[in-house]
């Protein structure tokens, strides 16, 4: 129970010896630069002072206990927090050196470049075909929609499963297929970044494995940021991992903060912060 500090790294290594962590690329060409980011809901500061860079065509995982603000941070990247009337965002989020919250930035344009997949599969109550075609259509796509649908579904490794029922309702698919359809729908608008908010939390292990395979494949072309409660998932798929936790102040309010952000291999085998180590070794959270 009372493991000394120094043995933590070794302990972490022996617990998951079979995992081969993925090599992170340098952050020289960062897609996002986040500096001093704080998010308020009304007067409540949900997240304070987050600093991180998100690497190009890599998977960045955000882990941490419930209420630590990781989803809040994720929703800053495509300005989904704009939909919460009381939300305010302070600090810097630069996307290719462009301020995402700049005065002239149109959130619609932002979201076309930075797509999002949600926790619960949420296909539109329409056909599979229309689910894929929706994004490009509202974006003014002029080309051949049939080709685009096929190409997108192939890309998302879903074509073989659904090619004979494109016109049937997406709600008839299984949960895992629905979630992969949601991912396909997101890449149909050809974004650069895909944000995933606990994409596997409602899925069984087999469906989860398929999503992870897909994420790995998509990471060759897309920058992916994934929030997950599943530490093994973060360890398996991500290149870099950010660990968030929440401080509770005198009034009992929780303020999320970024504790540690590093290459996944380092976070899981040799974290530099005690709280990270406690969390990944299952001592809290």
């Amino acid at each position, binding site marked *: 129970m009372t493991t000394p500090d120094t043995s933590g790294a070794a302990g972490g290594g022996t617990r998951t010896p079979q995992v081969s962590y993925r090599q992170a690329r340098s952050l020289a060409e960062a897609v996002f630069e986040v500096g001093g980011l704080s998010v308020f809901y009304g007067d409540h500061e949900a997240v304070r002072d987050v600093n991180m860079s998100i690497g190009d065509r890599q998977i960045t995982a955000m882990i941490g206990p419930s209420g630590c603000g990781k989803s809040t941070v994720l929703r800053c990247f495509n300005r989904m927090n704009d939909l919460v009337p009381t939300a305010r965002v302070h600090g810097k989020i630069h996307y290719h050196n462009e301020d995402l919250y700049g005065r002239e930035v149109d959130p619609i344009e932002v*979201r076309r470049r930075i797509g999002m997949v949600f926790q619960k599969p949420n296909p539109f109550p329409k056909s599979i075909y229309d689910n894929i075609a929706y994004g490009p259509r*509202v974006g003014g796509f002029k080309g051949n929609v049939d080709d685009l649908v096929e190409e997108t579904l192939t890309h998302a490794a879903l074509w073989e499963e659904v090619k004979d029922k494109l016109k049937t309702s997406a709600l008839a698919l299984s949960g895992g297929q629905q979630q992969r359809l949601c991912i396909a729908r997101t890449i149909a608008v050809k974004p650069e970044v895909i944000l995933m908010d606990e994409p596997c939390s409602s899925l069984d292990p087999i469906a989860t494995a398929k999503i992870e395979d897909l994420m790995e494949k998509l990471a060759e072309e897309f920058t992916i940021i994934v929030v997950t409660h599943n530490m093994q998932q973060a360890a398996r798929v991500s290149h870099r991992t950010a660990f968030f936790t929440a401080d509770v102040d005198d009034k009992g309010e929780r303020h999320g903060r970024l504790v540690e952000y590093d290459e996944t291999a380092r976070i899981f085998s040799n974290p530099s912060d005690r709280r990270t180590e406690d969390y990944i070794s299952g001592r809290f959270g």
Partner: protein
Amino acid sequence: MGAPVVTQDAPALPPPRLKGRGTPLRERFFRLGLWASLAVGVVFLAGLLLYVVVEAWPRLDSRIWSNFPDIIDPTNAGAQSAIMGTLWVIAFTAVYCLPTGILAAIYLEEYADPDRWWNKVIEINIQNLAAVPSIVYGILGLGVISRGLGFGQTVLTASLTLSLLVLPIVIIASREAIRAVPQSIRQASLALGATQWQTIWRQVLPAAVPGMATGSILALSRAIGEAAPLLLLGGLTFITFNPTGIQSEFTVLPIQIFNWISQSRAEFVALASAAIVILLVILLAMNSLAIWLRNRYARRW
């Protein structure tokens, strides 16, 4: 610890008692009470229908919809002008109140910030308007629409008045339908780079249409049965011709029924019953359509 078999000396336990004690008396009475309450409603409705049909039986033939009212000869009288009047009035009521009501509902659900005081005021007022007695709308129609705007005793005045009457109901029903569309659908659409208008037009409204249609039909069937506001508007005049446009004078079924009931001759009572049957058939047809729509397009999310 070491004793291997102790159980062989233990006395055999009695078998567990699994037989129930039957439904307690209180629960039986409660269920009886439920059935009795239900029976009150069903028996009265059935009795009412039976009574009306029996009364109407001698006059329930094609004369009721092929002939026009006749104050002298009841055997020659029919309600065609009232049936046509009802259809005209209700059609134009729909034309006026559905777009207005649905657009108002969209504003309140999708655009209005519920924290702003004026939106709260609007919301409370709509709730209150739905509870205002229909005769008050009749006074409004008479004073403002018929006389103030000078539209007179026409189909136009009647449908505008009825529109005002059912507008709150349409708004409330449409808001319910819009609210039933899960937030996750809106978020999915916005996250794909759709504008708010695209999201509403292409996702929210199609998903809400069945609910809005059901609510609107029920609202319109309330308008069909209304006599009070139209009485005030002067719809009690003796009309022996079908409306030909929104500027026509008109009569409607409830008023025609009222008219005939107040006659002293028994033949007119049968005639009124026959008109009631026609009115009920129209209402039941509309409500069935509403139920069919609801079942046909019921969504699971």
